[in-house]
C-alpha cells in the first residue's frame, strides 16, 4: 500500500475551530491533511489553473468559491486524481497528502481515492438497491461480514436512515434528488475516507434538502475533512471554516487561467477580504 501510514480507524479528533492565522498557508496547531504547493493543472496544452498553494486542514470544511470556469472543479479533482482518466490532463507542482505527493510515480490512484472520496454535483446513485449502493464501496474494498451494520451506520450518519430503513432493497433511483444526494454521501462515507470532496453537492437541491446536507456537513467534520466547491456564497459562509477564492485571469498572451486569489479563514474572507477582487466578488460587484 502506498500510504499505510494513515491509520483511518484511530484518527485523533481535533478541536473544530483551530486557531488560525490570516493568510494562505495558515499556521495551525495541527499539520494540514493536504497541502497544495504551486499546483497547476493542464488540459493538453491549456493551463486551466496556475500556481495554486493552499492547505486543507483536518476536520475542517474548506470551501472553494469563484466565478464559473475559474477551475474550482479542476482543482478539486486534482485532489484525488479524478483528472487522471481525462485525456491530456496533467498536474504539476505538489499535491501533498500527509506529506506525500499524490502524483509521485509509485502512488496508486486507487489507494488515493479510497482515502479521499468524492461527492458529485449531480446525484449519481448506481441503478441498484439502496442497500447495494451503500454496500458497494465496502464490497469492492473487501470489507466482509457485518455489512448490514456498516450500511446502517453510513445511512444514519448521512441522516437518511429513517427515511429509507423500510425500503433498503428498493431501487435507489426511486428516491428524491435530495435523498439521492444523501445516499451518495452515505455511499462515500461508508468506506470511511479521511477527506471528502464535494463538487457543488447542493446545486440540484431545494432549500430544505440543502439545509439537511449543510447540517450533515457540520456533523461530518467530527470524523472527516471536507472540501466543498460552491457557487452559493451564503453556503460557503455558513458551512466552511476556510475559504479559497478563485478567479480567472487573462495573461499577456490572452489566455484565461484560473488563479487562487485569496485563502483565509471564512469569517475573515467574508468580512475583511485582503484582496480587492475578493471584495468585489463577495459583494456582488464582480462582472
Amino acid at each position, binding site marked *: 500500500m502506498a500510504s499505510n501510514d494513515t491509520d483511518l480507524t484511530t484518527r485523533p479528533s481535533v478541536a473544530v475551530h483551530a486557531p488560525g492565522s490570516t493568510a494562505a498557508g495558515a499556521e495551525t496547531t495541527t499539520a494540514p491533511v493536504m497541502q497544495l504547493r504551486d499546483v497547476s493543472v493542464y488540459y493538453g496544452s491549456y493551463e486551466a489553473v496556475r500556481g495554486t498553494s493552499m492547505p486543507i486542514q483536518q476536520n475542517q470544511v474548506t470551501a472553494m468559491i469563484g466565478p464559473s470556469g475559474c477551475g474550482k472543479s479542476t482543482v478539486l479533482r486534482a485532489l484525488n486524481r*479524478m483528472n487522471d482518466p481525462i485525456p491530456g490532463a496533467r498536474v504539476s507542482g505538489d499535491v501533498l497528502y500527509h506529506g506525500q505527493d499524490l502524483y509521485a510515480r509509485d502512488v496508486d490512484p486507487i489507494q488515493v481515492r479510497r482515502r479521499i472520496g468524492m461527492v458529485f454535483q449531480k446525484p449519481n446513485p448506481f441503478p441498484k438497491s439502496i442497500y447495494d449502493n451503500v454496500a458497494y464501496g465496502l464490497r469492492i474494498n473487501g470489507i466482509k461480514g457485518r455489512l448490514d451494520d456498516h450500511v446502517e451506520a453510513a445511512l444514519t450518519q448521512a441522516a437518511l436512515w429513517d427515511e429509507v430503513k423500510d425500503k433498503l432493497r428498493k*431501487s435507489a433511483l426511486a428516491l428524491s434528488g435530495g435523498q439521492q444526494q444523501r445516499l451518495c454521501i452515505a455511499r462515500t462515507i461508508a*468506506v470511511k475516507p479521511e477527506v471528502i470532496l464535494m463538487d457543488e453537492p447542493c446545486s440540484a437541491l431545494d432549500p430544505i434538502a440543502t439545509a439537511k446536507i449543510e447540517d450533515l456537513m457540520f456533523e461530518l467534520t467530527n470524523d472527516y475533512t471536507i472540501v466543498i466547491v460552491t457557487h452559493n456564497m451564503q453556503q460557503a459562509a455558513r458551512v466552511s471554516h476556510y475559504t479559497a477564492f478563485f478567479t480567472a485571469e487573462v495573461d499577456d498572451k490572452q489566455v484565461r487561467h484560473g488563479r487562487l486569489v485569496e485563502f483565509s479563514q471564512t469569517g475573515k474572507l467574508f468580512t475583511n477580504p485582503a484582496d480587492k477582487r475578493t471584495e468585489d466578488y463577495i459583494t456582488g460587484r464582480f462582472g
Partner: protein
Amino acid sequence: MTVTAAPATRPTADRPDLTRAALSGRRRFTNRLATAAIWGAVLLAVVPLALVTYTVVSKGAGVMSPSFLTEDIPNSYRRVGGGMAPAIIGTLLITGAAALMAIPLGVFGAIYLNEYGKQRPLARLIRLMADVMTGVPSIVMGLFIYIAWVRLVGQFTGFAGALALACLMLPVVIRSSEEMLRLVPEELRQASMALGARKWKTTLTVVLPAAISGITSGSLLAVARAAGETAPIIIVTGIAFSPNWNLFDGSNTALPAQIFRNASTSFPAAQDRAWGAALTLIVIVLGFTIIARFISSRFAIKER
C-alpha cells in the same frame, strides 16, 4: 360550473380559441396527410408479415405432429411421413455453440472498445473491421469456413456450421453491445472510481449490469438471425438424416438447410416437410425472442 355551462362560442381577445378549428386549413390538411401516411406505412409493413405467418402456419400445421418433431428425416425425398428431429437438434446445437463462442467474445470486444480502447487506433480499426464483417454475405462466410476449417479437418461437421454462424454473429454482438455500453452514464463510472474501484471492477459491477438488458436482447436477436442462416450450413455441415449429437464428428444438418433441400424438390411429401420445418424454425426463433424480452424486462424492473 360556468366553464361547462358556456360552450365554446365565439372566441374573443381574452378567450382564445383552443379548438382544432382554430388551425389553418393547410395545417389541418398536412396533419391528416401525415396521419394517413403513417397508417399506410404500418399496413404495408404488417401485410407481408401477416401473409408469411398465415402461409407458413396453414401449410406447416398439417404435417406438425409429435412424430414430426421426433422422427428421423427420410432418406428419400419421395417418401411420405418421417420427421425433422435431426434438423431440430442440429439447429439447437449449432446455433447454441455459435452463441457460446460469439456472445462472450463479442461482449468482451465491446467492453474493450468502449471502456478501454475508445478512440485509440487499434479500437478504431476493430470497429471498422466489425462494420466490414457485418456486411460480408453469409455465403461468403460459409466458403471462408469451408476453406479455413472443413478442408483443414477433412470432414463436414456441425462445429464448422457453428463457426460460420459465430463469425456472422460476432460483429453484430460487438456493435450492439458497444452501443448499450455507450448509453451507461459516465457519472456512474466516476462514482465507482471515486469509491476506489479499479477499472475492471467498475466495468464488471457497475457498467455491465447497467447495460446487461440491452446486451442480452441485442445478442439474442443476433442468435435468432443466425438460426435462420442457410447458405453456410449447406456449405460446411454436410447432410445428416439421423440425429448427430456430436458437433465435432460427422455431418450434421439444420432446419434452414432442410427447408431449402426439401422445398426445392418436386415431391409433395418433401414440400410438406419443408413447410413443417419452416414452422418449427419460426417457433424456435420466436422462442429466442421471447426469452430475450423476458430477460431484458427482468433486468429492467431491477433498474427502476
